[in-house]
């Protein structure tokens, strides 16, 4: 006799307080937004299904649907036909810090190369400015 045991480790992404002055749908919307902003939910990542969330917390599936619809309208998530909801590929980054954070890896890379080549900081900076002007000049034509 052969017994096959499948152990399924599953953690729910959300933490919902059902006895709270904050409506459940709003708790879900805010949590998904935070998870996306912090990168825990990456662009393209699947969200737990409406059924899975309703089942886990024993709540009304319509509440989860309502939250997901609002996030979809805001452009944070998209509907993947036959699969469910997923984080949108393009998030609207409004804050300056967010944008600088995205630039950082490229600059770090350039800084490493400049250091390896022994290029002084002022020369490297001047070069970067020149590149910026060149790029912006192209886009203004």
């Amino acid at each position, binding site marked *: 006799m052969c017994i096959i045991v499948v152990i399924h480790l599953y953690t729910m992404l959300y933490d919902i307080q*059902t*006895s*709270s*002055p*904050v*409506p*459940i*749908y709003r708790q879900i919307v805010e949590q998904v937004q935070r998870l996306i902003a912090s990168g825990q939910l990456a662009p393209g990542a699947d969200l737990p299904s409406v*059924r899975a969330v*309703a*089942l886990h*917390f*024993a*709540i*009304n*599936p*319509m*509440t989860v649907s309502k939250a997901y619809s609002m996030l979809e309208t805001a452009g944070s998530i998209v509907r993947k036909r036959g699969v469910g909801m997923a984080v949108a590929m393009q998030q609207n980054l409004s804050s300056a810090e967010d944008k600088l954070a995205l630039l950082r890896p490229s600059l770090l890379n350039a800084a490493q190369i400049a250091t390896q080549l022994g290029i002084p900081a002022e020369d490297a900076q001047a070069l970067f400015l020149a590149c910026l002007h060149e790029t912006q000049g192209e886009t203004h034509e």
Partner: protein
Amino acid sequence: MSNPEIVEQEIIKEKIVIQARDLTLYHPRGVAFAGINLAIPAGAVVGLVGRNGAGKSSLLQCLVGLREPDRGSASLFGCPSLQLSDAVRERLGYVAQSADVFEWMTAYDHLCEIGKAYARWDEHRCMQLALRMNLPMTTPVGKLSGGDQQKLSFVLALAHDPDLLILDEPVSNLDPISRREFMLAMFGDLRSEQAAERERTVLISSHLLSDLERVVSHLAFLRDGHLQAFDSWDAMLEFYRQVPDTDEIDASAIISRHPKNQTCIIDTRLQPELAVHGKALMLDELFLELNA
């Protein structure tokens, strides 16, 4: 009575499954309930709350046609409650406060026999639900505890996959695990990916506010036979606020006034400037305030 405009909009937009107009029932000591106007849209999960003796059971009995009101009318799916067609009965699941079961039969017997009367009866689904709720299947029902008899009533009400569930304190004797299974079962089979996404309307009267909070879309507060408030639960959370009782308050915005504490519950949609001073309430706090 609160938010008549909002209820009107819902009547126009959505299909109304449960309707009551000026529903009134007298009883020897006075009135069970009076002037009840309700319009419950398809897909709503409505919690009916109120103290014992507020009139909840009699109201539900009139809605399903088990009692005749003294004034006014009720209808389900547009069909008068006192003359429900077979087609509507097939779509209705009702659980009375005291279990409607045959004491000499086992739970298994019930599921087999009663199923013969309904077209959409799914014996397999019943059995699964009965098992998940730990319902003993082979003991004569008369020998089961009150809680187990309640479980049977509930399983029977769900077995023909009704579009409308009217439940009178269906879980008062159940342990938390059984109650959880009950709540999940209200929404159809969430565990099955293949289960059809059909809309079910639910009207449930219960004292277990923490259970209701997780599942309701709307709440109806009944006090001394009158409907104090009926609105979506999210709207109540967002707009009902407890504020100090002052002259600034517009009478039309008041949902209720506390007789001693000098506080009011107001609907801040009707007086937005007071929202910032108000305290948001959870369901048990709101219940206490409305029944003070």
